[in-house]
Each structure stands twice: as C-alpha cells, then as structure tokens.
C-alpha cells in the first residue's frame, strides 16, 4: 500500500537539496503543438521525489498539456521527458507500464459510470497488474477508507456527490501504487462546499510523501502544501519559486498581473 512505500520518506523541505538521484521527472526543452497552435514552447523542469509542485497560470497557458505529456496522453514534438531515469519515449519503455507509475486525476472525474465504486478502483489492479480479485478488493477498501468513502464501495458513481466522485477517482489512481500523481484542475468542476474534502485528501497524500504535480487555482492549497510553484504563460514557465515568495513577491510582470487578479 502507499503508506508502506511512503512512510520511509517523511516529507521534508530539505529533500530538494539532496543529490540528483532523487529526481523523479526531468523535462528538457519540451515542445508541443496542436496544429498551428504551439502550446508548450520550451519547458525545462525537474521534479524531485516527494515534491509537491503546483502549476499556476491563465487558461490556455499550457498547464494541462504539460502534465498530460508526462503520462503520454499527449505526445511531445521535441525535447525529452525522463521519468525515474528512463526516457518515456524510449523503445524499451512500455507505455502501459509507464502509466501505472503515473497516477492521474481529471477535472471531470471520469469515473466509469457503469461500474460500482469498488470496481472502478479494482479494474486496473486486476486487469493490468494481475492482482488477485480478493487482494485488489482488500486494497481498494483500504484506499476508500483513506479517502473517507469506506461505506460507498457498493454505490454507482451517479449516486455520489462530485466531491465524493473525485475522491474515488483519487483512490482509483492510487490503487496502482503510482510513484507520482498528476492532478488536472481537480476541484474546478466542484461546488465550493465540496472542494475542501478533496483538498484534504490531497493534503494527506502530500503528507505521506507522494510526489505530486498539481494544476490548480486553489491558492490556499498552494500556499499550505506546495514545495514549489511554477507560473506558466503562453507555453513557457515564466517564474518559479517557493509559494510564499511567488505569491508575495512575484518578479515577472505577468506573474504579478495574474497574482493580483486572483488574490
């Protein structure tokens, strides 16, 4: 379970200063366009094990595309992405294996509506990791309890609130025991009163030392949980810093303009 894996590394800000062996993801000169529209122009980014990185930026700045490139939901045009020492585009990289290491949670939850909660969570462990049904169910129940939905295992997604569905989606991604979790505006589609529960779940995850890349507009979450915040605009990372610094003392004029609008 995630806990066993993560308990070894208690979250610590000092982690960032340790050796390069701790690099989880390294993106170098990544470029990506959709037709004529260049979405990522030159992305260079390193994410360390256990780090929580928040990605900020106006809509259309390339935030979602950036994280979707990491599990190859989008294919990059140029540059390279190294995950735990392996180029994700190299020949010996099995894409399905890559995706089991990279959990992803979507804005629209994307739960499978025809399956019960428990089956949503166990589908991939059973079919991809070939875990036995009993073990998968057991682990799924533990995860569901962890996200506060232990009693909902037998429900269908439509019987749950948006916040509950999103927490099931998090549990579903965690069931693969990923090394890194990507969150793509996971609270944007939720009613305000449901946001908190999802953020709490994410905070728990961060506390356990999960490596997380979080695209969000939740400044409170960024301030409290993020180790580092990057600000993107028009396909570039224009600024990066610790959250406190970036929010209180933004250097780039575009960051300043964005921060002043949302705070």
């Amino acid at each position: 379970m995630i806990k066993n894996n993560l308990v070894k590394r208690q979250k610590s800000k000092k982690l960032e200063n340790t050796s390069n062996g701790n690099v989880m993801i390294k993106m170098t000169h990544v470029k990506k366009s959709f037709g004529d529209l260049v979405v990522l122009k030159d992305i260079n980014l390193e994410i360390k094990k256990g780090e929580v990185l928040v990605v900020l930026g106006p809509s259309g700045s390339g935030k979602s595309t950036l994280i979707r490139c990491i599990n190859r939901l989008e294919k990059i045009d140029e540059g390279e992405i190294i995950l735990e020492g392996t180029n994700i585009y190299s020949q010996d990289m099995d894409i399905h294996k890559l995706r089991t290491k990279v959990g992803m949670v979507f804005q629209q939850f994307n739960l499978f509506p025809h399956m019960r909660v428990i089956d949503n969570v166990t589908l991939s462990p059973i079919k991809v990791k070939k875990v036995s049904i009993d073990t998968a169910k057991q682990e799924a129940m533990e995860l569901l309890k962890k996200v506060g939905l232990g009693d909902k295992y037998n429900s269908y997604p439509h019987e749950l609130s948006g916040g509950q569905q999103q927490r099931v989606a998090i549990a579903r991604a965690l069931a693969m025991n990923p090394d890194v979790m990507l969150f793509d505006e996971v609270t944007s589609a939720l009613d305000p009163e449901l946001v908190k529960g999802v953020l709490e779940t994410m905070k728990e995850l961060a506390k356990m030392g999960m490596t997380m890349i979080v695209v969000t507009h939740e400044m409170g979450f960024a301030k409290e949980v993020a180790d580092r915040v990057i600000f993107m605009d028009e396909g570039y990372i224009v600024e990066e810093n610790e959250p406190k610094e970036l929010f209180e003392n933004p250097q780039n004029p575009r960051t300043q303009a964005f921060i002043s609008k949302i705070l």
Partner: protein
Amino acid sequence: MVGLGFQFDLFVRILPELLRGASITIQLTAFSVAIGTLIGLFMGMARISRYKIFHIPSTLYVEVIRGTPLLVQIMIVYYGLPSLGLNLNQFTSGILALSINSGAYIAEIFKAGIKSIKKGQTEASMSLGLNYMQTMRYVILPQATRNILPALGNEFIALLKDSSLVSVIAISELLRRGMIVYSRTYDAWTPLLGVGLIYLCITIPLSRAVNYIEKRWEIHD
C-alpha cells in the same frame, strides 16, 4: 372463395404451415443478427481506427453494402458464388447475405455508439495502464452497447422483416409459405394478411422488449 375477404377458417387451416415458415424466419434472423453483430462490432471499431489498413476496407464494406439493394446481394450470394466454385444451400446463402448486409448497418451503429462515449473515459482508462483492447472491452463497449441498444433493437426488427426477401431464393420462410398457400388457393388476401399478422406478433413484443431493456440498463453520467 375468391374475393370474399379474410377467411378465418382458411387462416386457421393454414396457420400451422405459416408458423413453420415463421420458425424459419426467426432462425434466419437469429443467426444473421448474431453474425451481423459480430461483423458490425469489428467493422465499427475498424471504421474509427486511425490505421488505414483497418479504416479503408471497413469504410468500403459499409459503403458498398449500404449502397446496393439487399435483394441484389441475396442473388449475388446465391446465384453468383457457385460460379466461383462456392456452392451453398439456400438457407446458408440466406444467412450469409443477411449477415453481411446487417453487419454494415450494425457497424455504423457501433461506430456512433463508441463515439458517443466521452473522451475522458478513454483517457481515464488509458491513464490507469489499460491497453486499447482492455479499454474497449471493459470501459467503452459496455457503455456504448447500452447507448446503442434501441438502434440495435430496431436493426434486429428491420432484419427480421427484410429476411422476407430471401423468399426469392426459395427458402421456405414466412412470406414464401404465404405465397405457396396463395398459389394453391387463389386467395391472396387471407394468407398474406396472415403473414403480416404473424410478423406483427413477432415485432411488437420484440420492440417492447427493447424498450424494457433500454429502461433497465439506463446509465447515469
């Protein structure tokens, strides 16, 4: 006897014969629907494939079959194939023609059904490490099948009615039995009305069943 309208006593007398025809009709339809669905499933998936090797032949198949009359297809299979050295009996020819024909329509139904599932479902499934076939099997097709059930049911009903066309290659299905009675009694009205009535007795419960299943399987987003 001629021109007296629907004669109930004649109808009762020929009913066993017509019912034997109906049984053949149902068998023809059942086999053809099963094979046609299988063809349609794969052709439908091939239709939306981004690989030309799948996309082009499946598109050609659908266009050709939908663009030519079923009657012509039946005759080509029955009268044409023997010249290629392939001799099939009437029943097999009928099933082959009907399967190939319905496969094209069902392919379009599957295509629409698969496309009706939001992209996020595929992305979520892929992001969990499932491959294309697993994603289709466990995530997309179960949802797509529910969405297309009414269309599929209508196609089944249409095929049941269209199967009357194989009477031209002398398969003793429902319509042909009616025609035989007509040529024997010179009364067209009673046997043909009887044939229509029996078709209705099959299609109405069938469409009710489709409605019922559709309601029961309704999924929520």
